[in-house]
């Protein structure tokens, strides 16, 4: 890679930070194992940085980065073909297509999330905080928090569905308004 200009580096930082959540979101959507997803995100970041010189300013960075992520995911998938709990190529393609098409919706939902989080009870927020700060599995978390796996699992499902509904209603309200 030839010498990259400071402007280009600045552009990279801005674009990457703006899209980091989406790129990581796509990878974690198709790679269920968290540590594999993080490793892959690391690789994707390196590739995006290495290839950034070829990126044409003003074009869709998100689509470009997601395409790179998709190819890395497919390569990972082929390497780990015997792993059964992985999506097929067709499913990855479908998920990728939805990621490409829902950028604005994703940003809207992300913004609505903060208001919906505020509507949760303190106890529910604590559980979420613990879940997303915790690096282990739900079983580890149950052991740690002295709760049953089943209770924790059901509680988390309920909270996620509540948030999902809240965001849907919030966005529907915005459109109506």
């Amino acid at each position: 890679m030839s010498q990259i200009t400071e402007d280009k580096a600045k552009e990279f930082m801005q674009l990457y930070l703006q899209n980091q959540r989406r790129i990581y979101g796509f990878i974690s959507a198709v790679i269920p194992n968290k540590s594999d997803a993080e490793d892959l995100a690391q690789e994707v970041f390196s590739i995006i940085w290495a290839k950034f010189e070829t990126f044409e300013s003003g074009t869709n960075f998100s689509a470009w980065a997601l395409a790179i992520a998709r190819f890395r995911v497919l390569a990972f998938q082929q390497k780990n073909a015997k792993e059964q709990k992985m999506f097929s190529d067709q499913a990855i393609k479908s998920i990728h297509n939805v990621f490409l098409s829902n950028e604005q919706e994703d940003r809207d939902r992300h913004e609505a999330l903060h208001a919906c989080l505020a509507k949760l009870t303190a106890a529910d927020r604590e559980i979420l905080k613990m879940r997303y700060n915790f690096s282990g599995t739900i079983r580890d978390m149950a052991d740690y928090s002295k709760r049953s796996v089943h209770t924790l699992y059901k509680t988390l499902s309920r909270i996620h569905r509540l948030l999902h509904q809240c965001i849907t209603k919030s966005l529907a309200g915005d459109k109506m308004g």
Partner: protein
Amino acid sequence: MDCQQSKRLYDLMDAYREGVISTEEMGELDCLVTTDIQSCETFVWYVQLSTSLQFSIIGNEQEYNAQLEMSVDEALEKLMTDDSSDRMIGWLLGEEAEEKEKLIAFKQRNHIEKISQKRLEEYLKGQRQDKCDVEKPVSKNNLALGNRRKEFNTLKAIAACLVVGICLWFYLQSDEPMQVAKIVDSHNMLWQDPLPNIELMFVKNKEYVLRQGVAQIVFNNGAEILLEGPAKIRLESANGAYLSYGKLVANVPPKTMQFTVKTLSAQFIDMGTEFAIEAKEDGTSECHVFKGLVRLIAKKSEIVCAGETKRVLKNGQTIIVKDYNASKFIRSKYQINDQGVWPDYESTVLEHEPVAFWNFQNVDNLFQNIIPWSEYQANGASAQLQKNQLFENNHKVFLIDGVAGHFSLSDLETSPEGLTLVFHLWLDEILPQNIMWQHAPITSHLKYSRLLYLDDKEKMRLASTMGDDEYPDLYSLEVCDILDEQKILKAQYWHHIAIVFSKNWLAIQLFIDGALYCEKTTTRKVPFESDFSDMTFGVAGNEDDLRTMLGAINNVILFDTALSGDEIGELYQATH
């Protein structure tokens, strides 16, 4: 998407997010995401919600948003010095020197050499962990727990490897070949080279050529295949085989370890499945899934869902095959009859308006009723099913797909128009006392019952019994009189059986293959009691003297009326 589908999707997504999804559920989710755009959008949104939560709750998002307001130098400096960016440093470090060089070049260009170098050194010396522990007391326990678990898991893995290694070493020292599967049944089987042992065991990694016939092979892991000749197969392990050419149907019980069939062009991995593979000598192979899911790995990895067929060309390219004739595969030894196909009524049976019709071929072990049982339950009847019921000596009674069923007929017994029971019957062998059906419960005190069985002369008999100690006519047995002495039952053949109770419930008739075979007019109506009205297939007798049928039953049909001989003839003709 209706409410139930939506709920199911959420359940699958929750299981996926929490890493507790089963292989079968993963396949189901894959199918939904691939085939239904709405499900796919919901899935993506749900995942994005988790990612948003992760970023919002851990706080990354606010920091990154703040970073956007900084100068690039400040942002990069922060990126390299802040604990929250450890992961990114990890990414940048990577495993390759090239990545490290790129990082250093990047930092040099952005004047952050001093700080980042220090940070890099810290990272490489493993000091990061200590620092995190001091700065983030909340996560200390989590990290410690994670580390302890990692250590424990590592120890477990090493111990497991040692045990497996030692076992393997001892095993390889022995002269015995590794036997991975055995033949449990066959039909006209002819191998190119006779199997070397009397137990019909297969040796690992040896090639076998089945010239003709069908072999039912059970692998040590529990998976079962029906291999149809001509075929050439190599059993690579207790979990899989390489099929050079030929046809097979694999039936892999849900809790069996992953079972794989390889061909020249592809690998087919079961995901709780019944599937058929045909491998051709030109290198193409086809996979049809009857139940569950199969992961197909060729040029790319994909899922084959139940009812789908995919053809893999020699170059690994995959084609979806529409209108595939899957009936060419033999799915059960009970399918090997003169017709070479399952007896099947299609819609003909509906014209006679049955009360219930159970076909065990396509319904995944579930009884299906044309008229819902709820309608009968309203009148006091009930249906009870016992799947894979085990009786004494672990003898399992098999209907098709391993279902032993019985149900109550307290309502139908009082049907003023009589009753007709029709089914297809396959007997493994023609043996005396082989009892096919009993209209009575399996209890220690047999009161009233009706039996269909083979007598000592191996003739099929329909009989009524009644009484026990409490009744004066103890064990009186009224057996139907045979009208057609020429009729000979065949083993390993699907016979069409019909039992008719007359309108006044005084006469019983037995039809075999559409023709009246025997009948009996009883001296009085045999009473029924609601407690003793169960109808049981494949097993008869009582707890002290239980007899099980050696064979199979399929296409059980019930009519709440006595069908005429002509109507029974029509039903028989519809499947033969």
